């Protein structure tokens, strides 16, 4: 079941969940006013969202909702307001971007703040992980897009050696970056960023530079990348969703501008967020008028309209959730249920000082599937039997000979018994005969 999850910057509708296929509303989690890119599902186990607060507040807040409770259960208060959040697929860590340009890296299971670094001069607006989850791409209000290697950020020595802590810094955008997406392909992936300067720019991670600029008629607030990476969707403030080509060949086929090959344009209000479903054939767009529209990417038609609330929708996610997530053992289901019901502790505000770091160990979930016994066997008897038979045949082993001994002992015991019997019989007979003879003699003599 694919769910559409949406939230708004105004807390009037909370977080709404719809079934993508049927459009039925599944549940509505309460009290959430999220900034853009501030909503995510952590490993499919629970929902997390950073919260908008008035700018005077010195600390931010991040809430967790478990799937089966509508109220937020865990509240964390990071040192500064966080807006974008991102997590890895496993859901073991959360990365948040702060309003002062810092990026925070938390361990989910323990809530510890493992790392924090100053990433941008102004607020971080969007965060995204590369498909192998080793690179982090951040966009900022100051217009820069930076690529970070997570490994390097944890490697103090490496950081000191390097001239800068980031891998790439792209600064061609002149205004605030509104969205960033990353394609697939590990090191040769592309990154697309949208900015208030009305452009989307395509960057190559391996090249480390700008590959293409696409200019749009209006500001783009959201990007969704087609899984085939032939094109991307760009939701704009004029209400259209433009389709821009990433393919080198077709570029000038539309009146919208270079590289723009079409638009989905029934929208009246500005599009503030986009998401594609797993197959890439349904595009979900969230609008500032509080509605969510689902488009068929092949026919370019609206197939469904969902109503979130009055407030502008600024986050939509499409996630896949099944009732039995991993069709494995019963134990596993129990374990995963346990995961879902109990949420991890809140996130720390500060990093621990190194001294009392000894005690803090990562909390891991060991694989829940049954691995094999050391010799990979489930049933033993046949194996034991054949190895015993081998020993019998070789007659070399002590155990086999022991058993043979036992058998022989029993045999000999039985034979001994037999012998005894025979002897007894013999003696009886003997006595009888002797008696007979003696008696006969006596009789004769008499």
């Amino acid at each position, binding site marked *: 079941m694919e769910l559409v999850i949406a939230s708004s910057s105004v807390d009037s509708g909370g977080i709404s969940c719809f079934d993508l296929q049927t459009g039925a509303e599944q549940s509505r989690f309460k009290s959430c006013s999220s900034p853009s890119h501030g909503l995510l599902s952590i490993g499919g186990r629970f929902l997390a969202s950073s919260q908008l607060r008035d700018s005077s507040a010195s600390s931010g807040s991040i809430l967790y909702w478990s799937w089966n409770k509508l109220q937020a259960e865990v509240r964390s208060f990071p040192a500064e307001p966080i807006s974008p959040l991102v997590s890895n697929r*496993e859901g073991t860590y959360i990365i948040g971007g702060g309003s002062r340009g810092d990026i925070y890296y938390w*361990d989910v*299971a323990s809530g510890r703040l*493992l790392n924090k670094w100053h990433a941008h001069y102004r607020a971080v607006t969007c965060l995204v992980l*590369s498909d*192998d989850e*080793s690179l982090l791409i951040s966009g900022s209000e100051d217009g820069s897009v930076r690529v970070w*290697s997570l*490994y390097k950020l944890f*490697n103090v*020595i490496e950081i000191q050696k390097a*001239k800068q802590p980031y*891998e*790439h810094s792209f600064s*061609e955008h002149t205004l605030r970056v509104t969205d960033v997406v990353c394609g697939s392909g*590990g*090191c040769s992936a592309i990154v697309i960023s949208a900015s208030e300067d009305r452009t989307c720019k395509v960057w*190559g991670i*391996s*090249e*480390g*530079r700008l*590959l293409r600029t696409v200019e749009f008629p209006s500001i783009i607030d959201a990007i969704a990348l087609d899984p*085939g*990476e032939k*094109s991307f969707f760009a939701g704009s403030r004029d209400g259209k969703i433009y389709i821009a080509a990433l393919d*080198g*060949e*077709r*570029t*000038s*086929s539309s009146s919208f501008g270079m590289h723009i090959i*079409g638009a989905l344009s029934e929208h009246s209000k500005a599009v503030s967020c986009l998401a594609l479903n797993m197959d890439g054939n349904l595009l979900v767009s969230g609008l500032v008028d509080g509605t969510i529209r689902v488009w068929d990417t*092949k*026919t370019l038609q609206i197939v469904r309209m969902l109503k979130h609330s009055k407030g502008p929708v600024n986050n939509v996610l499409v996630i896949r959730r099944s009732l039995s997530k991993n069709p494995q053992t019963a134990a596993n289901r*129990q374990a995963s249920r*346990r995961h879902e019901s109990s949420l991890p502790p809140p996130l720390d505000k500060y990093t621990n000082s190194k001294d009392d770091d*000894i005690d803090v*160990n*990562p909390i*891991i*979930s*060991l*694989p829940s599937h049954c691995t094999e*016994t*050391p010799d990979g066997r489930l049933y*033993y*008897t*046949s194996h*034991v*039997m054949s190895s*015993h*038979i081998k020993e*019998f*045949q070789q007659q070399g082993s002590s*155990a*086999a000979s*022991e058993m043979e001994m*036992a058998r022989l002992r*029993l045999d000999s015991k039985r034979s001994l018994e037999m012998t005894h019997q025979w002897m007894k019989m013999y003696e009886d007979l003997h006595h009888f005969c002797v008696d007979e003879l003696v008696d006969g003699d006596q009789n004769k003599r008499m």
Partner: protein
Amino acid sequence: MTQPQKMGLYEFYNNMYDIRLKPRLLRSLTKDNLPDENQPFPNPSTLSNIVETIKTHALLSETIGSDNNNNDSVDDKFFDKWKSAVDSWVEKLLLLISNKMPDKCWAGICLLGVTCQECSMGRFLDSYSVWFQKLLPLIQQPSDSQFVKVASCASLSDMFTRLSGTLSVKKDGASLAGKLVQPVLNLLTEDSSVSVWEGAVDLFSTISNFFPTSVNRHYDSAEAVIVSKIKSGKCNTNLSKKFAYSLAMLPKTRGDEDSWSLMMQKILIFINVQLIDAFEGLEEETKSREAMTLLVQPGKDPPPPLGGCDTARGNAGKAPSSGEASNHAAERSEQLLFYKVSTLMQCCSMMLTNPYPVQVSVPVRPLLATVRRVLSVDGSSSQALLAFMTVLQQEKICSELPLLHLNSLDLLTSIIKGLRSQLLPNAADVIRLVTEYFRRCKLPALRIKLYSILQILLISMGVGMALYLAQEVINNAFVDLETLSHGSGIASSTTFSKPGTYALQQPRNKKRKHATLTGSAADHQNGAALEKELPTSKPPTPISVQIAALQALEALLTVGGALRSEGWRSNVDFLLITVATSACEGGWASEERTASLVSGEPTPIWADLQLAALHGILASLLSPTRSRPRYLSQGLELFRRGKQETGTKLAEFCAHALLALEVLIHPRALPLADSLNNCGAFDEALNHKFPENPFSSAQKHSTPFSRGVLSLEPDPDDDLYESWLGNGDEIVVPISNTDKNMECSEEPSEKHGRQTNVDPLGEQLAADGSISTVVGDEGRNNEHTGSMDVERGVCTDELMVNAERSIVPNVFGGVGNSEVMVPTSHTGTGEKEMESAEGVSDGDALDTNNSVIIPDSVVTATEAASNKGATSAIDDESPLDELASINTSSTFGKGKELISEDVSDTDSFPDIIDADPDSNSESDNF
């Protein structure tokens, strides 16, 4: 209902699938083959025949598979027959078990175990408690034969395995299991036979796996028993592994986080305490203290020692080197110490990788500290510490150390596996540990482990990790693959005994190997020289190490083939193709393997090496580059040849490789527009593209040029189909470019231009593999990347250049800026691009046959802004090595001329040198 009703003696079965066969077969088995009360025991091998027959025909299943095609002929009578047959079978078995003769009893137990596994669920549920009562006394009687005990354990284990699968009897099963735990522990303590231990520990593991709650009550005594067995050191490797496993499974019987952590802590403390004795005189005292402080925080009480206090040696945790140690020293102390530590390390590994019901907190730092501690000891002893040990002691320790190292590497692997993405905060530690150790490590088995650790790290941590591991992997792989990479006549498995040199002069090798083809060429010479010098002292690199090295390279290319790989990529590609060619030169080796007699594990054979080499080639061809994979044709040739080896794994892989490469050769640039218009049917879109030429004539004039460059690139954006249709003659070139010369695959049209003067040279050079070709290669490669930068810019924005010139300056200005902003990028500064972009447009203007040469000029001399410059570059270029030396060292006379002549922008050269930092040291070395 055809005939089965009056099944008589004279009635025949339909075929071997006839179900009527089953009860009768079972009956005759029961009657004829089972040992009897009175008859003597038959040959034991008949038992395995019986089991075979029962399993093949599912004689005990009492159910009919869906595949049975005469279902209609089945009636109750048949099932009755079958049921009674099974009844009598079981009855006979139970009789046998009660028999006093141990062999008959043993046979009965074994067959009952098989029955537990094979019989129908209904029957099993009905009778398991009876069977249990029958079997239980057998492991309790002290007098019974070993075989009987072991077989009873196995049968009981199978019974509980089957029970665990049925939820309805789970509770009952748990109570039965509870009755069993104490007898099993008694077996372990009282019996002295190793094989009985093995059976008992298997049974114990089964119980604690499937019915954890039943063991809970006996937790402490179980721990004590298992630990005492491990400490006793009487077990063989296999058995000690089983004990380690059962100890690792023990916390699961409690199932809470604390038991797991406590067990882990206890084991680590025990290991570290043992190591104090073992490494006395071999390590600084500070190290051991460091590991211990991580484990037991100051101010906190240490946990009770492993195995509890009640055992005689229980207080090892508190008083490590007191009475106990001296006691041990009298015995075979070192060996026993190492054995215990190894086994417990295995136990830690198992704890980290086996399932556990709740989340646990892993003491990463103590674990890593322990691993580091062990790996840092190599048997050498500092002068100050020498007093503590004798030569004999050191000898013993050195003989045992490799195994210990192997186990700690296994533990490290498990740490990485267990922590998965949460390794990140400690990843730097792990990398340092591994890379440092790799430099010192010389034993094949350990190197294999290290390679596999690198491979795991690369794949799990992605590009970010590849950036830092690349050099380490390459340095080591180059050394280990040395024999193969120079292999001209050493290809066949029979002659494969030429020595490798990794044990020799590591630092120097490393330097030489450092990522330049110059290096590897020089190496060739040096290597040859060294071989002459030391004909006997170098051991050959075992195949298994070479396979591991190839796999690590494969992983590196898979994960990080494109990011900052300019420095090493071409070398690795070259190495892989050389290795593969020389490995496959002597034909395909047979995959028939003879399992090694010693370990039972299959030893890697030549065919495995070939397979690994081909895996490497595929990764090298598929991993993204900015130019066309240089050895595509050679790779394809190898795969095509390999595919013909019908029925081998190699052929299977070659077919897969050809499929994967097909996408590289025919990139499916399926445009969204088409798929949108055609309602997304992808194959339709593809079909449409063949007949319809999407190129307009207006675009056509641009293609000769951009195509020429573009066709090099395996970029999905570029579309070979269209370029075929767009400009026929031009495109024939890249297709025909599949020749043997490794050097000329880089540029389709270039080949035309150069064929006459370069090819002979190139071929000659390639043949002897001497410096200049290789250097030339490297140099060109640098330029290549430069020009490829252009190409990227042009290719993705190519129509911008042509159709809308007005935008060009803007865009390229942007590009230039980006380059300046990113100093980490080695090649292609902004200016360079600007100029070559001009070159591109010039080429467009010409657009005739001349354009065949122009791309050449752009590639070989990127900075050439005019046609003239280009031609002169070509003229001057014929002494290839000279040009190459300019690029690599840029200090020699002619090179300077060239630079001043052709290169207007000298700024770009430092870049190239940067990309190739070793070239200077290279030239010094000469």
